[in-house]
């Protein structure tokens, strides 16, 4: 991990019940493009729902769709925590409404 990555929060670091906004997608292009086409694009709001038994994958909700992945995949998603979204970002706002409910 390079120096910049130290301060970066990953989707895999979040605990169930929290939510965050995607800032960037990294990792191998195969995983990255699959993540992005499933809706994990910068600006999207992700809600962390719950973890599977035995430390298995985690269930997330993004763009109103529930998607599960392992921590290996979730580590490719950089996020910024909390609900302090940029109000100019319409996508975040519409998705935030979802989270708020």
């Amino acid at each position: 991990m390079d120096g910049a990555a130290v301060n970066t929060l990953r989707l895999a670091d979040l605990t169930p019940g929290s939510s965050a906004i995607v800032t960037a997608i990294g990792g191998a292009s195969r995983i990255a493009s699959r993540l992005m086409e499933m809706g994990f694009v910068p600006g999207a709001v992700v809600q962390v729902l719950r973890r599977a038994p035995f430390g298995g994958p985690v269930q997330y909700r993004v763009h109103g769709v529930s998607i599960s992945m392992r921590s290996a995949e979730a580590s490719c998603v950089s996020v910024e925590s909390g609900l302090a979204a940029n109000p100019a970002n319409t996508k975040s706002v519409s998705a935030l409404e979802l989270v708020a409910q």
Partner: protein
Amino acid sequence: MRVALIGNPNTGKSTLFNALSGMRVRTGNYPGVTVEQRIAKVNWDGHAVELIDLPGTYSLSPKSPDEMVAVQVLTGCCDEPRPDLVICICNAAALERNLYLATQVMEVGLPLVLCLNMWDSAVSSGVSLDVAGLSKKLGVPVVPTSASRKEGLTELRKAVVQELEAGAGAVSLHSDSFGHSLLSEPIRHEVDRLCGWLNTSGVPLEKRSGFLVSRSLLDPGGSVESMLVRDAGSGYSVMLVEARQALKDKQLEIPAAEAEQRYHFIGELLSAIQSRTVNSRAKLTDRIDAVLTHRFFGFLICLAVLLLVFSTINWFSAPLSEAVEGGLGLLSSMVSSSMSPGPLRSLLTEGVISGVGSVIVFLPQICLLFLFIGLLEDCGYMARAAFMMDRLMGVLGLSGRSFLPLMSSFACAVPGIMATRVIDDRRDRFVTILIAPLMSCSARLPVYVLMIGTFIPETRYLGGWLSLQAMVLFAMSTLGLVIAVPVAMLLRRTLFRGEPSPFLLELPDYRMPSLRVVIGRVWESAQSFVVRAGTLIFATSVLVWAAGSFPGDHRERFELTAKIESLESADAELNAEEIEVLSTELNQVNGQLLRNSALGRVGRTIEPIFVPLGWDWRIGVGVLASFPAREVIIATLGTIYSLGGDVGEEDEGLRGTLKAATWPDGSSVFSVPVALSIMVFFALCAQCVSTLMVIKRETNSWLWPAFSFGYMTILAWVGAFLTYQIGIRM
């Protein structure tokens, strides 16, 4: 006219396809259940339309052979003509994500009709959308439908016909609308440059459309890139790297740029025309998931669901099977009383009725199993099971994605192995294919039910709630799964070594399963089972009857039978003594005939192989005869033992016959250890030609079916050996 249906998984695509075509197709909630391309011929307003159901996909960036099918069909890269129109199906309740694929399909260059399916549940979950506005902004007809309620289908058909009439003949092989792509100018410019380079490369015209070239550029390492590099040479590979670098210099990183631009476009599009109030369905789903996918309780519930499925099959099927059995017994005695003893009567009662009949007895179990699998799939639970089982599948070196193929293999390994096409990792896929035949398929169920019903005592525990029979059935049904664990671990560490593959799985919102769809699926599987029973199993029954009857002189047997029957019809009580003498004689004659028949000779020659398993040569012959299809064993045992003349006087049907079977020294052939050893053998053996053929097709090699057959046969023998040897010492 050819019309292709494309859409994300979990959009009700298969249900819509069914509703449009009237043809029954397997549908479900699990991503990728439609792995086969399905075609239906329909007539819409005088147009002969060929409907093509494409595999469910999230994008046109194929990473697995399954997803590549969609791209090949849409671009005409395969041997078939290009479709004249595409219907893109979206889940109206999750339009943001679903429109991603739609914006890619718009670039293919075919007339498009956008179908917003599951409209009813989207509306009830608080989505309101300006359909006309969406249609205007995208420039394509948009039709809301609710396929499971058959709503909106007329409008959809009308829109398709209208488009076909308007654009008839306009589509050529290279018609291409990538020029109108929503992607930014620098990307389109690079695509143009690449197209120009390919024009001189000798690559066939249909493979260098702007659309395909854009896919090769935007999806590094994807199947389209491989295809074009294969055709155009490695020079194209260099061109692609350069083009991506040029874009990166303009702050457009591939593949991120595509996703960002598309989602940005969709976000702006929808913000103007869509409003959501409360997503009640998502909320409800989350509330159900809080219980059903709970870290601890969720797992217990999953196990309980599986146990309940097997218990219920056991409870309900017993009385149903007995009724069928009784009916068959009646039929058999009707034939017997209306014909005099002879080869034809022997063929009818001992070959045909006892053969095919004893398979139909198990129809109730098969229907129930498919009913449960259908319900679990359709309501959305199957994907949850994969989510919860991912960690456990990880122990095998596999992902939760292998769970559905393996679960389906509990019904039948053939669709299970075909469903492995959704596993994009080659090693995962091969390991899954190789262990799938170990899962307890429905064809094994008859063997278990017969053996358990006949030899396992009806002991009950926990106040009658848990029966020993159900527990043995559960144990047998999970044995293959348990054995699959070390097999998969071994394969993953030897032949298929490598890093675990990524795991990204959609968990669709829960919905009421459509009973119509599920019943349709049950009907389809029951039908195909009966057809198999009527052809393959029938043929085997008659062959086994012939092999067990000839060569041999049956005159004495028929004379004895006729004598007994005339005495019985005169006065059975008065002639009881004489009948008994004749019956003993008949049994001896029958036994002698079977011993000296073709079947008996083969069986006795190889008997030493089966003795350590506790089997007599007749079981051995039955097992040999059932290598083409394991369900044949029931028919074969029925035929062999009724030919053998061991029919008990009090009991009717095959169960009685088996209980009465004896070794030459008079001791019973069947005991609990023998029954268990037979079941274990069947649990582990690859007795199914269809499965081996599908493995050949899916792996494109004879090596893997041979490997499966070899390792499973050895495993089965060792398993049965251990079971019997341990069993008789307990």
